[in-house]
C-alpha cells in the first residue's frame, strides 16, 4: 500500500477513537438494545421484526453522528474481505472496519503455479483500495486480543477497536508439535510449508530450482481437516510440470497422514497421464505418517520407514488461528463451533467466525467456501442489526486444480441448512467426470483462471 493510502487511513483511526470516546452509557444502552432485539427475534413474528427495524433506524437518526452499528472484521482474505464488502452492500449505514495485518493480500489459490514457475507472485497480490472505495474503513493492524465482554479487539500497538458485532476471518495456524524437529523457524528457513502464500512460496520455488536432476522432493501432507484439501496433490502436479521440462529424472514423494484424499481418482489418473511414475503417493497405512524431520539432513522419520529427500515441503497439522484459540472460541480439536446459519460463535455473543477457522458442516476449508460463508454471515449480521430474523442461507463451493497446461479438474458443492446443519443438496455438486474428454479438461483450466479473476474481483473491487 502506498504512503497516500496510509495517509487516508489516519483520519479513520481518529474517527474510531472519537467514536470509542462516546459516552459509555449510550454505548451500553444501544448494545443492550441490539442484544434484546436479536434475542426477541429468534421467536419474533415478522411484523415485530419490521417494527424493531424501524425503531433501530429511529434510534440511529436520533444521534446523527453515530453510525447505525459498528462491525469490525478481522482478516482480509477470502472470507473477511467478502464479509466486509457485502455488509456494506447490504446496509451502507453500518460502519464496517476491516482490520488486516498486511497492506497486501497474497492469494493461496493458484500459488502452486508460483512454485512451478507458471506465474509470478505479483499476479496473486492485491491491495485493499477497492474496499476503501466501497466505504469500508481498512486498517492495517495485527489484532492480538479479543475482549468479548467489553466488545473490543486490541491491536499489536495497543489500539482498541470497539464493535457491536465482530466477524473473525483469521484463517488457520500451524501446529508443529506432532512432528519432532519442526518449528516456525525451520519452516521459514529450511523446510517451507508454503501453506500461506508469500515468502515461503518463493523459498520452495528456489529450492526446486536449485535441486539437481534426479533429486527427490517429499511433500508431507497433513491429516484432516486442513486448508485446501486438494492443495497438496495439485502442488505435486505443478512440481511435476516444472520437472518434466527441466529435471525429468526428479521424483516427487507424497507422504500422507491420510489414506484417501480430495479428487483422488482424478489426480492419480492425471499424474499418470502427464508425468508417468514421477509422483508417488504413500498413504498413511503404507507408511506415509511422518513423526520427525531432521532439517539438516532432510531425513524424515516415518512410522514404518525413513525417507531421504533433497527438498522437503512439510505441510503442518492445522487448527484455527491463534487469535481464535486465545479468545476461547475453539473446541477441543482447535476449530470454532458456530451457528451454521449465522456463523455466530457458540462460545461468545456478538462474535461470528467464518472461513477456514470455522466448523461449517459439509463445506471444505476452501476459498470459495469462505467467500460463500462471508456473504451468509454478512446477511445475518445486517439482519440482526436491523432487527430482522437471519435470512435462509445458501452456500456454494467450487474448487479447481490445474494438473497440466491443458488439464484442469474441479469439485463443486451446493449446500443448504437442514436441522441446523450445513449439508450437501442431494444430487448436486460432485467431481469432474473421470472420463472427461480433452476439450473439457482444457476448458477447466480456463475456468480455473476465470474463477480466480472473478473471486478476487469479488473481494477487492
Amino acid at each position, binding site marked *: 500500500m502506498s504512503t497516500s493510502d496510509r495517509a487516508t487511513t489516519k483520519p479513520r483511526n481518529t474517527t474510531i477513537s472519537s467514536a470509542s470516546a462516546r459516552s459509555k452509557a449510550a454505548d451500553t444502552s444501544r448494545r443492550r438494545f441490539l442484544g434484546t432485539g436479536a434475542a426477541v427475534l429468534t421467536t419474533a413474528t*415478522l411484523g415485530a421484526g419490521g417494527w424493531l427495524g424501524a425503531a433501530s433506524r429511529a434510534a440511529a437518526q436520533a444521534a446523527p453522528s453515530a453510525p447505525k452499528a459498528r462491525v469490525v472484521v478481522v482478516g482480509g482474505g477470502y472470507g473477511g474481505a467478502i464479509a466486509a464488502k457485502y455488509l456494506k452492500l447490504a446496509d451502507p449505514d453500518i460502519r464496517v472496519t476491516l482490520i488486516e495485518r498486511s497492506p497486501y493480500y497474497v492469494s493461496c489459490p493458484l500459488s502452486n503455479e508460483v512454485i512451478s514457475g507458471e506465474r509470478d507472485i505479483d499476479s496473486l497480490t492485491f491491495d485493499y483500495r477497492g474496499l476503501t472505495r466501497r466505504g469500508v474503513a481498512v486498517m492495517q493492524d495485527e489484532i492480538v486480543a479479543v475482549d468479548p465482554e467489553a466488545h473490543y479487539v486490541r491491536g499489536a500497538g495497543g489500539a482498541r477497536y470497539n464493535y457491536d458485532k465482530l466477524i473473525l476471518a483469521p484463517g488457520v495456524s500451524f501446529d508443529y508439535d506432532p512432528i519432532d524437529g519442526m518449528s516456525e523457524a525451520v519452516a521459514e528457513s529450511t523446510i517451507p510449508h508454503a501453506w500461506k502464500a508469500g515468502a515461503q512460496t518463493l523459498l520452495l520455488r528456489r529450492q526446486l530450482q536449485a535441486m539437481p536432476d534426479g533429486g527427490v522432493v517429499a511433500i508431507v501432507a497433513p491429516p484432516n481437516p486442513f486448508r485446501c484439501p486438494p492443495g497438496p496433490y495439485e502442488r505435486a502436479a505443478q512440481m511435476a510440470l516444472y520437472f518434466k521440462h527441466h529435471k525429468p529424472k526428479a521424483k516427487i514423494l507424497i507422504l500422507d497422514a491420510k489414506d484417501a484424499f480430495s479428487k483422488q481418482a482424478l489426480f492419480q489418473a492425471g499424474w499418470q497421464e502427464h508425468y508417468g511414475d514421477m509422483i508417488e503417493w504413500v498413504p498413511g497405512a503404507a507408511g506415509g505418517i511422518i513423526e520427525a524431520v531432521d532439517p539438516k539432513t532432510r531425513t524424515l522419520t516415518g512410522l514404518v520407514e525413513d525417507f531421504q529427500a533433497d527438498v522437503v515441503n512439510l505441510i503442518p497439522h492445522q487448527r484455527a488461528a491463534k487469535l481464535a484459540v486465545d479468545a476461547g472460541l475453539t473446541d477441543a480439536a482447535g476449530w470454532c463451533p458456530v451457528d451454521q446459519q449465522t456463523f455466530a460463535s457458540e462460545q461468545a455473543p456478538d462474535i461470528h467466525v467464518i472461513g477456514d477457522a470455522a466448523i461449517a458442516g459439509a463445506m471444505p476449508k476452501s476459498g470459495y467456501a469462505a467467500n460463500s460463508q462471508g456473504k*451468509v454471515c454478512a446477511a445475518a449480521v445486517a439482519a440482526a442489526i436491523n432487527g430482522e430474523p437471519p*435470512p435462509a442461507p445458501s452456500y456454494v463451493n467450487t474448487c479447481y486444480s490445474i494438473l497440466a497446461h491443458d488439464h484442469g479438474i474441479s469439485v*463443486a458443492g451446493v449446500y443448504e441448512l437442514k436441522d441446523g446443519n450445513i449439508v450437501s443438496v*442431494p444430487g448436486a455438486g460432485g467431481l469432474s467426470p473421470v472420463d472427461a474428454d480433452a476439450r473439457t479438461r482444457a*476448458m477447466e483450466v480456463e475456468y480455473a483462471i476465470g474463477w480466480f*479473476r*472473478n473471486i478476487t*474481483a469479488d473481494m477487492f473491487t
Partner: protein
Amino acid sequence: MHALHNRRPGLAARIDPPKPHPPAGVGLLALLALALVLSSPVAGAGDVRSADMLAHTCAGCHGTDGASAGAAMPTIAGMNKSYLLTVLTDYKTGLRQSTIMGRIMRGYTDQEIAAMAGWFAARPWVSTERPVDGQVAHRGEQIHLSRCETCHADGGRGQDATSPRLAGQWAPYIRHVLKACRDTGLRCKTRQGAERVMALDDAEIDALAHYYESQK
C-alpha cells in the same frame, strides 16, 4: 429432465404450511399484515431463500452482481430473463452441456432458478473495457452484418428469450461457445444459428468474438 417440474423433496417440508383463515374480527389486522408480508422481501420468507442470497453465491465465478471479470466466464447481469431461465434450467436437466454448471444448478429448485434469473436480469449490464483492434473488429462486423444481425440485432445489443446479448461480452467466452457449437454441435440453441456458426472458420470466429466484445 424428470426433475424439471418437480420441486426437490427437501424443500416441500421446509415451506410454511398455508395459514388458516383468521376470525372476522381481525380481518383488518390480517390485511395489514398481509400488506407487510407482500411489501417486504424478507417478511414471510420463512425458509425460502431470497434471490439476493441465492444470486450472491454465483459471484465467485461470474463477478459481483454478475458482471464478470473475465475471461471464460460470461457476464450474466442484465441478460434477458427468459433466456437466463432457459439456460439455467437446461444446465440443470443436462439439455445444455457444461463442465460444472450442471453440477451446480442441480442444487436449486425451479422456483429458485427463476428467482436467480430474475435477479440477474434486473442488474445493469457491464461491458468489458479491453482495447479494440479496429481491423479485426471490422472483419467481424462484416460477418455479423451478413449472417447474424437478423437475430442478434443492433450489433449484438439486442436480446430476447433465444438470443443473448453479445455486445460487450467477453470474447474468450463467445469464442468458446461458437467453437463448441461448430465442432461438437453442443450449445447450438437454434437450428438457424447453428447452420451459420458451423460455416465459420477459426479466423472468422475470432473476428466475430472480437467485434462483439468491442460493441459496448
